[in-house]
């Protein structure tokens, strides 16, 4: 899967450069997140600007990353959700779990 990884405000920013985050590529994202935590990265921001479709497997990969972040005393935040993607978080109540920001620039600096 196409990911653009950068660092910003002491966070690793993963921009998902795919139209779909689904059962076909969710495993790749899950593995990438695991690798980052194993490298000692703690705070992750996932930029979903380019993602216009997410399914339950895509949501599951983000939940997996979120749980790993908590286990490692870190965080996993989300930014730039397209309206229909956001509605999937609302339908599954996951919008209560994640910190969701309008854009990466809106995420406060890590302490």
């Amino acid at each position: 899967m196409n990911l653009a990884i950068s660092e910003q405000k002491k966070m690793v920013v993963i921009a998902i450069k795919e139209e779909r985050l689904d059962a076909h590529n969710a495993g790749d994202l899950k593995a990438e997140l695991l690798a980052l935590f194993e490298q000692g990265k703690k705070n992750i921001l996932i930029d979903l600007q380019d993602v216009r479709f997410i399914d339950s497997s895509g949501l599951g990969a983000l939940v997996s990353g979120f749980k790993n972040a908590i286990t490692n005393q870190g965080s996993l935040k989300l930014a730039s959700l397209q309206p229909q993607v956001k509605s999937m978080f609302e339908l599954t109540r996951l919008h209560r779990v994640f910190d969701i920001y309008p854009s990466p620039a809106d995420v406060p600096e890590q302490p």
Partner: protein
Amino acid sequence: MDNKRIEIDIRVPNQTRYLGLIGKIGEELAKGLNEYAGNRNTLAYYINLVLTESVINTIAHANARDPDKMVHLSISIEHDELVIRVFDEGEGFDLDEVPPPDFEGLSEGGRGVFLIRSIMDSVKYRRVDSGNVLEMRKSLVKG
């Protein structure tokens, strides 16, 4: 065009790389349903999602991720309803036994059937001659 005559029959290899294609076909069909009472863009996303969720269930469970098997489904318009049927030759399962998601917990899976049920008006899984069919219907009149 007489929408009541639309039936799209799809057979693709049992591989996740075809999920996007199948979703796109459903999405484009939904966008063209001028008679739909609700928001067609929302319907298009929903149909894409229902197709993705139902087909991945077949790929992973009934067909046990065997890439040499095939997935067979149909999307049709029947009497003001959009009907999706996904066929499989697996052992089958009891749809009523699939539990709702644990909204308080943080489970990685278990949201697929919930999403299908949230979107469609009726969801049935039954035995047919050659195996099973998951049949999902959505009214185009109610919106």
